[in-house]
């Protein structure tokens, strides 16, 4: 089986809310793909659709070319961590993994193996209800690894982890990708993925905003970014908006313009008689690039069309 996830044109509506609006991307093996976007962007819904838990109104999601529900012993194809709290509190960690293992034709030896892999061998006989969030995340990872799957999908795996846990998780995810697995990790914070992901799928409002490598994203975002300082902000935005540029307001008198070189900006402003005090190009951090993609800029771009 190919270790890939293909998401193609997913559309899903929850009542009045359009949760997925043509979500499409592909996750390739051998790298960590960050699945990033603000809360409510459709990350978890996309993952649930991929895993056959939610049904999409349109489009399809395939794992190694097949829908999840057609997989035999699915946990040997995909490992997923959706909600670390999904535990019967009175069941021990080992027994939690044991029923899961037997459902896939695996046995107790494999359970002990994954407990060791996530460093929980000593906690196996303890009731899962007493675990800290960090322990639950580890147990969730253990469950995802149970079937030794070529594809892994983790929804906010570092959420609530202490710094030590975050470092452990990063190393762990990198190691799993290094073994040739396709690893999809979602987060609503780019900073969490900064040192982990090779590739990014940035989503907002149910669709993909950017599907790019981390390096390309920074380069692209930086190249296009120009800081414009002007007292006549609204006029400047109005005239620049007609050119199709993307804008973000960072201060009352400061606009960050992307998608338009600085000389064109100066020309447009001059041609329309808009005063300005400073135009400067600059390089952005990944976090900023992400904010530009998912923050107010999304709204402005939408409004400019």
């Amino acid at each position: 089986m190919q270790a890939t996830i293909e998401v193609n044109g997913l559309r899903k509506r929850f009542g009045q809310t359009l949760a997925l609006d043509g979500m499409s991307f592909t996750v390739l093996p051998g790298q960590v793909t960050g699945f990033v976007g603000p809360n409510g962007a459709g990350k978890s819904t996309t993952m649930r659709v991929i895993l056959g838990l939610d049904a999409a109104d349109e489009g399809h999601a395939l794992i190694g070319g097949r829908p999840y529900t057609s997989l035999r012993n699915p946990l040997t194809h995909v490992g997923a961590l959706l909600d670390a709290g999904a535990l019967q509190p009175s069941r021990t960690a080992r027994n939690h993994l044991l029923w899961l293992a037997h459902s896939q034709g695996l046995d107790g030896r494999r359970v002990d193996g994954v407990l060791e892999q996530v460093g929980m061998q000593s906690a196996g006989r303890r009731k899962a209800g007493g675990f800290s969030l960090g322990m639950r995340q580890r147990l969730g990872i253990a469950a995802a690894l149970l079937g030794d799957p070529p594809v892994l999908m983790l929804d906010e795996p570092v959420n609530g982890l202490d710094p030590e846990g975050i470092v452990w998780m990063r190393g762990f995810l990198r190691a799993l990708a290094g073994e040739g697995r396709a690893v999809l990790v979602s987060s609503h914070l780019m900073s969490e993925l900064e040192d982990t992901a090779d590739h990014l799928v940035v989503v907002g409002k149910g669709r993909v905003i950017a599907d790019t490598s981390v390096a390309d994203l920074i380069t692209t975002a930086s190249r296009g970014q120009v800081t414009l300082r002007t007292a006549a902000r609204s006029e400047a935005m109005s005239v620049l908006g007609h050119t199709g540029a993307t804008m973000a307001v960072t201060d009352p008198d400061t606009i960050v313009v992307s998608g338009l070189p600085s000389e064109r900006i100066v020309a447009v402003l001059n041609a329309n008689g808009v005063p300005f005090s400073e135009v400067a190009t600059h390089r952005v951090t990944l976090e900023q690039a992400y904010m530009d993609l998912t923050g107010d800029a999304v709204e402005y771009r939408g409004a400019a069309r």
Partner: protein
Amino acid sequence: MSAISQRSAHRSEPQAGREGFGRLLRAEWIKFRTVRGWVVAMTAAALVTVLLGLMSASSNHGSCSSGPVEVACPPPLVGPGGEAVDDKFYFVHRPLAGDGSITARLTSMTGQIRKPDVTPGQRNVVPGVVPWAKAGVMIKESTKQGSAYAAMMMTGEHGVRMQHNFTHDVAGRPGGVSRQSPRWLRLTRAGDTLTGYESADGTNWTQIGTATLAGLPQTVQIGMFATSPGDLTVTQGDLGGSIAASRFTEATGEFDQVTLQGNASGAWRDDDIGVSIAPDGSEHHPGRASQSDGAFSVTGVGDIAPTIEGPTAERPLSSALTGLILVIVVAVMFITTEYRHGLIRLTLLAGPRRGRMLTAKALALGLVTFAAALPATAITFTIGGRILRDNGNAVLPVSLLTQVRIVVGMAALFALAAVLALALGTLLRRSVAAVITAIAVIVVPHVLATTSVLPDSAARWLLRVTPAAGFATQQSIPEYAHVLGHYAPIAGFYPLPPLAGLAVLAGYTALALGLAVFQLRRRDA
């Protein structure tokens, strides 16, 4: 494409499916056994059923009076089929050696019925015969109560019948009897086979039925008999329920033109078979007979029929209701905790084919429940029954097959109720709502129907249309068409046969599980 490869491809598919189902089943079993609370509660359900059942049996004492003293009740009289029987009638008989027959013309059937007293203390006896008063000809193994027999008879309201060995009844021509339209009755013996005939004129005979009485001795008793069961009155209780009362009756048959064939050369003898003895040692409501010019008048009190009243074998199993409530709680929690903790998503990741997953869960729960309930019902039934008998209760005996049906059927009821509760838990996703619903549809109808709350008709209706119909599986004494009785749930009689009742419960369970699968498939998890 060779045929062989096609066939092997076909075969591998279902095997893979079975394997997958087996894995899900195993996973659900592990889920169950690894939550200590559920194991404890399921064990407690079994123990509560046993303990409450044995306690109720222990507190149930029976005694009978023998003259002025109280003694333990004798074991009930049983017929050739092993069931408890009444065998009380007046018999005018002769010995018959080998094959032969009796023919008699019945010219009248009359009787008396004691009605409720109008003036207190003053007997209110009116002429009349009760529907199943009997008078006719009989061949019986011996005069011993409970021995094998076959008889051709006229009844109070059910025309001519041929009956044998208490539980068998075949209808002849309906109608009554009078001097103007007498009824001729004939019974012949050929080896073990007895054949009954009737005729309106003594010339043209119609065969009504045959009975094979295996092991009938060479010499049997042949003659005329009369008997009359108590007059049954059922009154509705003030708060629902009903009260049944039975009052003295007697029936008299007038016979003439009596002819015997075969070696029946002895003299006529009169026997009041099974007559009651009053505390002072005298016969209570004795029968009588007289004879003049070849005409006989026979008057009898009693009945020749299976017993339908008395302590029943299933009595200790009333405790099952309490155990069942515990089982329902565990069964509901088995799925609702998955919803509460979001675990259902992990379950569906492991088994994405939802119908199959829920079926595996239901089967695992059903098997666990059955395994816990079977020893509980078996112990409660057998030990409880023994305690009842040791306490002097004349428990109505039932066949081994019936005992097995009751014990296994009640365990099946537990299992089906558990699966029904699981399905309700899946549909409602809330523990409290599902537990209340399950108890409301399984336990409450049975409680309402078997306590003095509802009229008999409403009680019967409840036990016909609700899942509580399954409790019919514990009924040990069947309803007999030829015995007038108070066949109401309050007296332990269910409106549906045992397996039909269980089938109603199974139908509800299948329906609820089907709806649960449908909704589980339709809903996002």
